[in-house]
């Protein structure tokens, strides 16, 4: 700490150059925080997946529906404790940009499958009684200001009604929350029976099945048993864990993790060049001063530490400012896009990784000039002064 003033003063020796370097670090870490938060949202479904839940989809693509008749056959498979199903509705509320997950489900079995969802008993009962009823998660209710008793029109983009209309109206019967702090509740559920009866096409099919294996059953064996049942049928199945399903679902949007990694890789590589150049210039300009420090008795390691600390300090100033602003922006995005992209969150792990990156980048950028300063010959440097 006693060297801090010296390090601080040296870092600000050329104010404009240091400010520009800090600005580039700031932008890099702002981008890092935003991309991490968005990546986190895309990964959220994978992380909260239940290991005992399996998802059954069409072998070729999730878009192909499966016959509703499969439910009983799946339920009869050894190792299956319970089954439910869901389908993709793909509508929006009022404006096309107000998209969120809407799923026609079987109320009874669906809520039994997801015990992490909590809803007052009387609301669940009311929903079960009302065929045109729907329930929504707390995040969605908050995002659109809905309350129980509201009548909510949803515009379909796929499922037109038999009467040719694309407007589906629902009564909001309940609002549920989740026990899992990372789980999203930005979704809307309504009666499959009502949906199947009213839609213009696709009757008798569902999007996918969700099943829970019995305690002690091997999920891999259960998955194999289900898929072999439907082998060579018109709708062959692919059964996987919830995590694998969530991952393949997200990959429909592209490999988000890979995109994030590539962008950040390019940004950090450029950052290393910029800050490495700053540190090299800074050390080159004060060779004689470093020689004086060594003359006064500062050892090789002290000089190495001073230069490296300067590099790390510049990274930390820019990085923490970037991360801080990123955190504020992420709060805004999370509120704004709660319904469309739930789970946007700058996680503590991302913050720790970010700070580690700052220190690591500081060491990398400062290492070459620091070693040069450490190896400096006092006599040669003073003779050149």
């Amino acid at each position, binding site marked *: 700490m006693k060297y801090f003033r010296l390090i601080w003063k040296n870092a600000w020796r050329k104010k404009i150059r240091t400010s520009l370097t800090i600005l580039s670090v700031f932008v890099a870490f702002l981008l890092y925080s935003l991309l991490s938060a968005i990546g986190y949202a895309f990964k959220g479904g994978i992380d909260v997946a239940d290991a005992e839940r399996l998802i059954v989809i069409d072998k070729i693509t999730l878009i192909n529906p499966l016959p509703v008749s499969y439910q009983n056959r799946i339920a009869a498979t050894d190792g299956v404790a319970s089954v439910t199903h869901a389908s993709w509705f793909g509508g929006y509320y009022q404006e096309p940009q107000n998209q969120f997950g809407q799923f026609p489900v079987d109320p009874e079995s669906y809520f039994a499958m997801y015990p992490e969802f909590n809803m007052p008993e009387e609301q669940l009962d009311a929903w079960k009684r009302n065929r045109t009823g729907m329930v929504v998660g707390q995040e969605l209710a908050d995002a659109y200001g809905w309350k129980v008793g509201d009548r909510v029109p949803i515009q379909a983009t796929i499922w037109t009604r038999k009467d040719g209309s694309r407007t589906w109206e629902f009564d909001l019967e309940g609002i549920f929350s989740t026990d899992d702090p990372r789980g999203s509740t930005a979704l809307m559920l309504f009666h499959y029976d009502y949906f199947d009866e009213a839609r213009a096409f696709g009757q008798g099919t569902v999007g996918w099945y969700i099943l829970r294996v019995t305690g002690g059953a091997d999920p891999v064996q259960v998955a194999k048993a289900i898929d072999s049942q439907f082998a060579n049928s018109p709708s062959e199945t692919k059964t996987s864990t919830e995590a694998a399903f969530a991952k393949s679902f997200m990959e429909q949007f592209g490999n988000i993790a890979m995109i994030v990694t590539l962008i950040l890789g390019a940004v950090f590589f450029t950052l290393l060049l910029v800050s490495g150049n700053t540190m090299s210039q800074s050390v080159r300009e004060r060779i004689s*001063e470093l020689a004086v420090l060594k003359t006064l008795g500062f050892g090789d390691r002290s000089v190495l530490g001073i230069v490296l600390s300067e590099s790390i300090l510049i990274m930390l100033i820019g990085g923490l400012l970037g991360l801080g602003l990123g955190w504020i922006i992420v709060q805004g995005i999370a509120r704004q896009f709660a319904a469309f992209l739930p789970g946007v969150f700058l996680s503590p792990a991302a913050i720790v990784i970010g700070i580690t990156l700052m220190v690591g980048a500081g060491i990398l950028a400062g290492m070459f000039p620091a070693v040069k300063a450490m190896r400096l010959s006092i006599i040669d440097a003073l003779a050149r002064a």
Partner: protein
Amino acid sequence: MTGVLAKLEGVSRTYQKGKEKVEVLHNLDLEIPDGDFIAVMGPSGSGKTTLLNLLGGLDRPTSGTVTVGGAEISSMSNNKLSRWRSTNIGFIFQFYNLLPVLTAQRNVELPLLLTNFGAKERAKRAAIALDIVGLSDRARHYPRELSGGQEQRVAIARAIVSDPKLLLCDEPTGDLDRETADEILRLLQVLNREHGKTIVMVTHDAQAAAFANRMLHCDKGTLEAREAA
């Protein structure tokens, strides 16, 4: 004077310049009594600065031994030598070599960063050193706000702040006008006479050398004693 502070025995220093070996100092023997003020004169390239560097542990002899304050510094490791330098030697350069980003006070405090003194003690000792060189009122000034003479006074304060026995001065007045140079030399005399500092000063200037107790002439790697003017 009470005994010998520094001693060079059979010291030679050879540098490799391209394919050629250049012997700057040749089999040199020298004793520097404690409390002495020596001026070393001689033409450029005669080995004056090399002698200073060897005494300060900035360079090592090719052969022979250098002993300062009872410690044989020519065989010390680099790290040990750095630590030893911080408490035993004060350096004063021709171009002051202050750190431009630090105030006079902070420049003087620099050698104390290597000690275990707390911030208050460092500040107190730096203030005393600045008082000795007559610059208490410039403590908060940056080097760019000081004249050449004032900068050299700050450099002297930095050299004495850790209370070393030996001050090594390389052309300390080479960048100053006559009047300011004489002020600096008088200050060195005070440090020698009143504070007991042993001083070895390299200079080209005969008038500067006259402030010393004795003069050594360095030429072609050997030393010869001459009377101070």
